[in-house]
């Protein structure tokens, strides 16, 4: 990698040379596929496998009876069967696993499998699922269909609201959004002669996967090896077991042969993990001058048939319901509810995308009611460093939200908003609006956010960094290369970067929560510091220098500037045994220590300490004849701490904003009676190059002292602001308020017509 290519992986990917998990076709591999009957809720009376087994090329058809161990996977709650035995709870639940010699034999076999099902009463609306007497998704479960009921409380919101001179209210709905990564869930597995289960999977959580697989299948977790190549996208949908347990099960029955599984796009929609649909109700009270006083709100999330990370999504969403503003009195109640819908799980924005729609539209409501400029209202209430947020956490980390807003205030798109709107062409309405998002970084309270980085001086005298957190496109491998290169004073292209491998790297948590470059990067810096110390001390021996601190690392050698002497690293490496050439260091993300608010009901997560902030501006055009919304221009000003990789920073902001715009305009995994109405990419629409605007990005000056190079994670924050920004711009354009996403042409046109009818 030369200095011309900022990311270590960019050229190999651009040449099509990089090997993803999907690209593995080991010699003699078997093809595995799951049979999913497609019923939303049913008792499984029988699975007829004989026809399929009789096909040439079909080796095995496994059912629940063939699963050793608990047959239950899950990240926090182990509630999801690997293969369902007696009941299926959503249309994607599998009841059988086929092993075949070829793709064709697999497809034929899957077409011949039949299940006898007895339909069970099902529930598809989370509010309905909460009512007593609703059909139970998990029979006999204490708590019924409510996976988690929780509360965040600060001060006395009820009393404060009653005393507020102004109160605005709203109810909002967000859809089930699919991650729709280009590389579907996939991997290969093989049981080695020594009993090791060797997996290569497109996964965000290689270390945790070992435990999920082991617990589900009754294995020793240390006998499971997981390697994660570069992922063809993840966005949360590959956090936790997708193919892993099925692949491992197949490998156990494959007589030592490798097995391959790759979900079809349709299967990815049906069986994969998606953003929790949400219903948000809110009351926001303020003084007449716009000072926020109290917030009372309720969040209901539909987690589908299994928990995945539903409780944690609820927690994070609830934490963000007040927005990055000073609100003295807060009461947030939340419910994460089982239904017989497809499974909701982690997805970029993780509850915050939902909450931000509500929080920001409530600010717009308030501004409108008070006749205040929406940007000024936000400036009036925005949190600054050292202040207490809505959960009562004192913001001791970098907090440059104000700078994000002032960047928009001065932007020509904002200053010319009225003129631009006035110049709308025929049959077009124009509007300009802003939204401010914040998004916490890391796992939060109760779960140590830890990474362990290993840096090695190889026998040849090169530096090797063992990356333990998956790179799903966010470029963290490249980021770690830059950090290590800077710390070791070597050209980044000279570093050897090892991709996550549970056998060679050290447990460092999942690639999620905006944490990877921050937590792992910090660990890398510590390991590099230890390596630097070690090498200077050892080089001092070689050079007979009595002051190791005066030596410096340079490309390929250690130099004694004072004496004009140096020793090559390659030479030193030959004299050091392996365990003397390796430095391992850990880093744990700091957690909030001063918390005046309280929470109830959470298992993990409450509260978070460090936040990224991003203020977005959308210029929107609305076509009166069709209701189509076009985002003409878009700009984001972000506080991500110090910027180590300017291009990487922009990539995350533009990419996050693009997915947020998709959520705003067209993405909706709609379902009816538990069956997806959007089972493929022709019906589930993600934005094409013609659907998105130029997206400008500015990094506001900031520095997170606890972060490597001063950075914070910006992987998620840009996802959260587009929906409220676009909804607000549409309201500015046409006076219509759409409180349900996405803002489809049909919804927009219907709202326009309602407004017209009201006119005299």
């Amino acid at each position, binding site marked *: 990698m030369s200095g011309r290519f900022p990311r270590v992986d960019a050229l190999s990917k651009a040449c099509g040379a990089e090997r993803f998990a999907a690209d593995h076709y080991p010699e003699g591999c078997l093809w595995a596929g799951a049979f999913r009957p497609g019923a939303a809720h049913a008792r499984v009376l029988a699975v007829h496998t004989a026809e399929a087994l009789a096909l040439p090329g079909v080796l095995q058809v496994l059912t629940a009876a063939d699963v050793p161990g608990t047959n239950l996977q899950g990240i926090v709650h182990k509630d999801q069967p690997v293969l369902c035995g007696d009941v299926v709870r959503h249309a994607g639940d599998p009841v059988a696993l086929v092993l075949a010699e070829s793709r064709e034999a697999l497809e034929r076999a899957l077409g011949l499998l039949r299940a006898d099902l007895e339909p069970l009463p099902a529930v598809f609306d989370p509010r309905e699922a909460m009512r007593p007497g609703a059909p139970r998704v998990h029979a006999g479960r204490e708590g019924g269909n409510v996976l988690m009921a929780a509360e965040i409380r600060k001060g006395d919101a009820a009393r404060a609201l009653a005393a507020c001179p102004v109160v605005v209210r709203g109810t909002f709905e967000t859809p089930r959004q699919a991650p729709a990564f280009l590389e579907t869930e996939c991997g290969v597995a093989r049981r080695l002669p020594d009993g090791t289960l060797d997996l290569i999977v497109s996964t965000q959580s290689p270390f945790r996967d070992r435990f999920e697989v082991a617990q589900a299948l009754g294995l020793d977790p240390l006998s499971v090896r997981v390697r994660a190549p570069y992922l063809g996208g993840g966005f949360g949908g590959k956090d936790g077991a997708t193919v892993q347990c099925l692949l491992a099960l197949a490998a156990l029955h494959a007589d030592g042969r490798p097995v391959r599984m790759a979900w079809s796009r349709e299967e990815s929609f049906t069986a994969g993990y998606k953003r929790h649909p949400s219903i948000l109700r809110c009351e926001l009270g303020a003084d007449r001058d716009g000072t926020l006083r109290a917030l009372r709100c309720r969040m209901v999330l539909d987690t589908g048939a299994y928990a995945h990370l539903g409780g944690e999504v609820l927690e994070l969403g609830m934490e963000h319901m007040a927005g990055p503003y000073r609100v003295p009195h807060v009461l947030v109640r939340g419910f994460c509810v089982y239904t017989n819908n497809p499974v909701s799980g982690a997805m970029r924005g993780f509850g915050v995308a939902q909450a931000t729609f509500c929080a920001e539209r409530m600010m717009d409501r308030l501004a409108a009611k008070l006749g205040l400029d929406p940007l000024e209202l936000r400036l009036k209430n925005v949190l600054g460093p050292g202040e207490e947020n809505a959960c009562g956490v004192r913001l001791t980390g970098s907090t440059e939200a104000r700078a994000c807003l002032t960047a928009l205030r001065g932007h020509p798109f904002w200053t010319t908003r009225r003129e631009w709107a006035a110049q709308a062409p025929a049959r077009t309405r124009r509007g300009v609006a802003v939204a401010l998002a914040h998004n916490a970084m890391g796992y939060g309270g109760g779960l140590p956010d830890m990474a362990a980085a290993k840096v090695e001086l190889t026998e040849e005298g090169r530096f090797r960094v063992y990356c333990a957190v998956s790179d799903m496109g966010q470029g963290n491998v490249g980021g770690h290369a830059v950090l290590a290169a800077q710390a070791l004073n070597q050209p980044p292209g000279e570093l050897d970067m090892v991709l996550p491998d549970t056998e060679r790297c050290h447990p460092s948590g999942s690639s999620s929560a905006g944490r990877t470059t921050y937590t792992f990067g910090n660990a890398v810096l510590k390991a590099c510091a230890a390596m630097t110390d070690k090498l200077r001390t050892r080089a001092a021996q070689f050079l007979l220098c009595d002051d190791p601190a005066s030596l410096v690392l340079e490309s390929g050698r250690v130099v004694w500037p004072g004496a004009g002497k140096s020793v090559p690293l390659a030479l030193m490496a030959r004299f050091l045994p392996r365990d003397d050439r390796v430095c391992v260091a850990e880093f744990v993300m700091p957690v909030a220590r001063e918390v005046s608010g309280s929470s109830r009901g959470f298992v993990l997560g409450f509260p978070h300490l460090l936040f990224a902030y991003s203020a977005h501006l959308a210029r929107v055009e609305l076509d009166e004849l*069709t209701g189509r919304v076009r985002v003409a221009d878009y700009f984001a000003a972000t506080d991500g701490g110090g910027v180590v990789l300017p291009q990487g920073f922009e990539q995350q902001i533009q990419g996050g904003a693009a997915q947020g715009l998709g959520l705003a305009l067209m993405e909706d995994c709609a379902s009816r009676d538990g069956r997806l109405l959007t089972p493929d990419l022709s019906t589930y629409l993600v934005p094409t190059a013609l659907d998105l605007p130029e997206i400008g990005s500015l990094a506001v000056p900031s520095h997170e002292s606890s972060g490597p190079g001063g950075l914070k994670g910006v992987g998620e924050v840009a996802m959260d602001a587009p929906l409220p920004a676009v909804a607000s711009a549409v309201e500015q354009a046409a006076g219509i308020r759409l409180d349900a996403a996405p803002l489809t042409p049909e919804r927009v046109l219907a709202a326009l017509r309602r407004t017209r009818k009201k006119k005299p």
Partner: protein
Amino acid sequence: MTRVLLPATLPELWEALAASPGAPLLAGGTDLLVRLRARRQRPEALVGLERLAELRTIRRQGRSLRIGALATHAMIAGHPLVLRHAPVLARAVSEVGGPAIRNMGTLGGNLCTASPAGDSLPALAVLEARVELLSAGGTRLLPLSGFLLGPGRTALAPGEIVGAVRVPLAADFQVQHFEKVGRRAALAIAVVSLAVLARLEKGVVAEARLAVGSAAPTVLRCPEAEELLRGGRLTLSALERAAKAVRVAVRPIDDARASAGYRRQVAGNLLLRLADL
């Protein structure tokens, strides 16, 4: 194993069709192969048409253009004869899918798929195109409305293929308008579409032809609306009157992409775009 027959001449084609009577016909593959996948069907044989070069030509034939059934959307969108004599068709097919789909998909395929939402169909309807059907027994010519019988249904008989589409020259229609409304700007199935040809004499409509797509079982001409426009100017109020007639004429359905109500409303609304031309 699937047998894939690729005849290079028409006689070879008739032989292939006779030998494998149930075999689906493969042109661009962008509809057929997607359908086969969705239905998990694996036919024993397929008859591919792509080597029949004579079906791919576009030429002028008297007062018409003869567009071979295997002409791709990309070919048609950029062809000088189409751009000169029937630009509304070029506009319509340039909205199909994306660049690769336009390189693969054919006009014949679009016709035979007979989707209510087919992008070429409203343009062909206002051009009053005729469909040339070929078989071992000879040629027959059908008007478009006689060919498209319903969603996914055509008048194609066994042993027959669409050989070409004959499009009367239409350069004297100054207004050649097409608008497709999808849920996104590319790779979209039309939720409703409108094609308009209008011939103006000193600003007054001498003849108007309107066809709406995706708002009825097949593409729909709107004679009542056309009549309302004839003899007047393309003013907003004239267009609004015609729009009302369009809304009465269409027979849309609800589906995952849009409701019938939306389609009805927008089918009429699209006409108002002409006021801004």
